[in-house]
């Protein structure tokens, strides 16, 4: 804070001398924080170490040395968990702060090495046999437990991606589109709708029952995206319809109604929570869904006039959406 500015404000009679004194005290004692730099280094360190150990054991899997590496991994994992267990603050269903800056990263390292350990056991001794579901289900349980027990948002995100993986869906932020062939299999769409709805429901209930309220954002973030994308995939499943008679029936109408209902629900929740982020994504997904319906209708008309109409639709609806967002922004700021 600029002390000269507040001195000027004081001269103008806008700020009392005691307030200026407080500002002076704070700006004089202002420290240069290396917090985020150190956190990033630490994060990269954990990333490299756990990744390196994973590859190390993978490459040496049939040599004599791998037992030692395995023991090392187990030791690191156990050590990390022991450290976290000893240091952690008492459990509560509210937000629990980390006791120090390293806690979160030690826990992360512990969980990652534990996952490597489990995966090794599966490859070498086939502990889960051919029940491949169990091979993702058990890590998921462990991660979920750690996320709640130690209060860690990153682990929770990993647990959610693992949960989706168990059901056959890849939901990490960047691969959501690449790895899932939504358009080919209806099963994936249904799974996506189920997972998305479940996650949104968990977020909603957690928020209402006051069980780890701050997890709600992570749950609903994954949930809304998965649900909406699955819905859009269902909606657009048969392209723009068959102009020589509609053989697929009116399935897309069902998807549209489902999506509209959830859009309204999320919109109301976002307004209640005053979350700009959810307002934006809900508005954009809703806009895509609506535009698809309009374009589909225009394709059915199948004339040059409809083409021009479509162009006009996008211009007018775009301006409408801009006005909508601007007004929402004003409304939330006032509230």
């Amino acid at each position: 804070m600029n002390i000269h500015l507040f001195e000027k404000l004081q001269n103008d009679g806008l700020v009392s001398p005691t307030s200026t004194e407080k500002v002076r005290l704070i700006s004089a004692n202002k420290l240069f924080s290396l917090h985020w730099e150190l956190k990033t280094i630490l994060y990269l360190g954990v990333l490299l170490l756990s990744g390196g150990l994973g590859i190390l054991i993978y490459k040496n899997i049939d040599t004599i040395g791998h037992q030692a590496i395995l023991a090392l991994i187990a030791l690191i994992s156990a050590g990390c968990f022991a450290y976290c267990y000893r240091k952690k603050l008492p459990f509560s269903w509210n937000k629990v702060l980390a006791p120090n800056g390293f806690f979160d990263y030690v826990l992360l390292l512990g969980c990652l090495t534990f996952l490597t350990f489990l995966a090794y056991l599966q490859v070498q001794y086939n502990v889960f046999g051919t029940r491949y579901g169990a091979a993702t289900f058990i890590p998921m349980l462990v991660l979920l437990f750690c996320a709640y027990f130690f209060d860690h948002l990153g682990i929770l995100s990993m647990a959610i991606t693992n949960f989706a993986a168990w059901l056959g869906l890849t939901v990490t932020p960047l691969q959501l589109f690449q790895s899932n062939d939504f358009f080919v299999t209806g099963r994936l769409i249904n799974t996506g709708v189920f997972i998305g709805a479940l996650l949104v429901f968990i977020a909603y209930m957690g928020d209402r029952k006051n069980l780890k309220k701050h997890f709600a954002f992570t749950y609903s973030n994954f949930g809304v995206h998965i649900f909406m994308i699955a819905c859009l995939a269902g909606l657009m499943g048969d392209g723009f319809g068959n102009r020589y008679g509609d053989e697929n029936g009116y399935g897309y109408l069902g998807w549209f109604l489902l999506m509209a209902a959830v859009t309204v629900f999320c919109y109301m929740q976002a307004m209640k929570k005053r979350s700009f982020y959810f307002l934006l994504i809900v508005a954009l997904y809703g806009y895509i869904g609506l535009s698809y319906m309009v374009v589909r209708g225009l394709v059915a008309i199948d004339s040059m006039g409809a083409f021009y109409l479509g162009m006009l639709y996008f211009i007018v609806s775009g301006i409408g959406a801009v006005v909508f967002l601007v007004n929402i922004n004003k409304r939330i700021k006032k509230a």
Partner: protein
Amino acid sequence: MISYNSKTLDNIEVIEAAEKALHKKCITAEEYQQIKTAYPVDLYTPNPYVRIGLFILTVIIVFFSFGLFCLLTMNGGEKAIGVLTFIFGLGCYAAIEYMVHEKKHHKSGVDTALMWMSGSAIITAVFIITDMHMPPSLMCLLVLLPATFFVLRFADVLMSVVAFLSFLALLYCILISAGWMIIPFTMMGASFAVYLAAVQLAKVQTYRHYLSCLQMLQIVSLITLYLAGNYFVVREVSNEMFNLYLLTGESIPGGWIFWIFTIILPPLYIFAGIRKKDRILIRTGLFLIAGIVFTIRAYHSVAPIEVAMTLGGIVLIAVAYGITKLLQPSRKGFTSEQTDDDVTDAIQLESLIIAQSFHQGGTQGDHFDFGGGSGSGGGASGTY
């Protein structure tokens, strides 16, 4: 030159400072309200998320308007399309001025989108009209001029990056006839000059509205300064552009100079940053450490990747641990504790990064991948 009212921009600064002071309970809520009425801000700057939405929607509107515009005048030939695009670009520019002066938009997403569309429309129009028959240096100039104009007019941060890079490209195009040995040093010199200029200008009161542009220029010029002297960049670019026909393992003449630059610059940045308490230098230096690692690994295999990763991870954790312990309690004005106010967004972002870098794909079919730990190697390679 700047399109906004200078007084209003100053008022924004005052209100932001007052908001921070209110957050730290230095001033009372009544005082904050008084300041707000004494320093009115009539510009419209929405929340960042809303800004993204407005940006996307404006791009959609402009694209379809352009499409409709072209459809109505479809049978004019290629030159006519070029002229139309040019007129369209000017129209977009008029729209920004309208949004800024009448609707009081200030970095609202709408003006940003219009600015990019206007710039690209004008440049594309020139390309269409001239049929791309122009020397590369002219093309760079063609980008440099509108970008500089937009920076001066709207103080847009990303546009300043475009302007700077097109300036360097222009320099490169001019120097290309002078031989490969000259280019790295001139590039480094130009980057360094821009860096120094940006640091000096950032201190000048007159240019206060361009502060974020100047800070961005500092970051980018520090990076180009490093890249211009980086052994990998110099060797590969020279080999490619000047047909040196180097075999693998062969070095460029005088390569040791560039090895010195490659290895010494990032630590130098960090050292200078710590001495001057300059966050930009520290962060850029830390980021460019990755450049050292990458360059060395590109030519010398010090250790197999997994050993290097494991050891590197241990070293990084040790460094972070050591510095944190050293700074408890705070020492010489440095602290490892967090001092900034709002952190919730950063934490949410962090959890997403964790989910992304330690990913586990969906189990498809009945083969089992070696998941978990080994999967994270994919995330690590991005940072290396």
